[in-house]
């Protein structure tokens, strides 16, 4: 079975009251990229995963996990 990258991006973003555009501005990507990562269409690079975790003040493991 294929492994997928699960994430808590939407939950954490909404908990902080941020829009996708606000999160995008914090990490320096487009809203489209945040949208596709949230919806598990696009698997982010290590660099972007680290930047996202940093923006939420979480570890990468708290934000992303492998779904089997």
């Amino acid at each position: 079975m294929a492994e997928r990258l699960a994430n808590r991006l939407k939950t954490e973003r909404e908990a902080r009251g941020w829009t996708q555009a606000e999160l995008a501005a914090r990490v320096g990507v487009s809203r489209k990229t945040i949208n596709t990562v949230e919806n598990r269409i696009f698997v982010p690079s290590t660099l972007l995963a680290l930047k996202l975790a940093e923006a939420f003040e979480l570890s990468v493991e708290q934000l992303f996990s492998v779904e089997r």
Partner: protein
Amino acid sequence: MHDVHDVEEAERMGRTRSRVFFVLAIVFFAGQSVYFSSSPATRDSSPRVGAWLILVLLMLMLLATGGFLLRGRKVRDLLNDEASRHNRLASQALGFWVTILSALAVYVESIFDPVTFNEAIHIIVTLGVGAALISFAVRERRAHRIG
């Protein structure tokens, strides 16, 4: 940290870009269908071939850069971030496969029906570049819409 205004500007330009690329590819294919339906005697006139060549070069530049005509470094960087670069690479890969497969198809066709060198190049390049541009436009439009 970027400005939210830049992100919104990149969003607007990204949607426009995917629409423009899609329409450009459709116009390109429509133009080539007119070209191939015209008589071989008049087909290779200089203006027609010149227009095709300019359009192909323009499309290649757009595919290579993601929109070299766009102004504003910050917004352009947001527009061509890693998701866009991924879409562009995937589209270029599709263009490669379409080019190879159309070259094979033209080769097989030439066994039964003579195809001139110019015709073969025209068909292969048209399909390869057009498919890549349409693929990029569709991927970008889908990425904007999801959610």
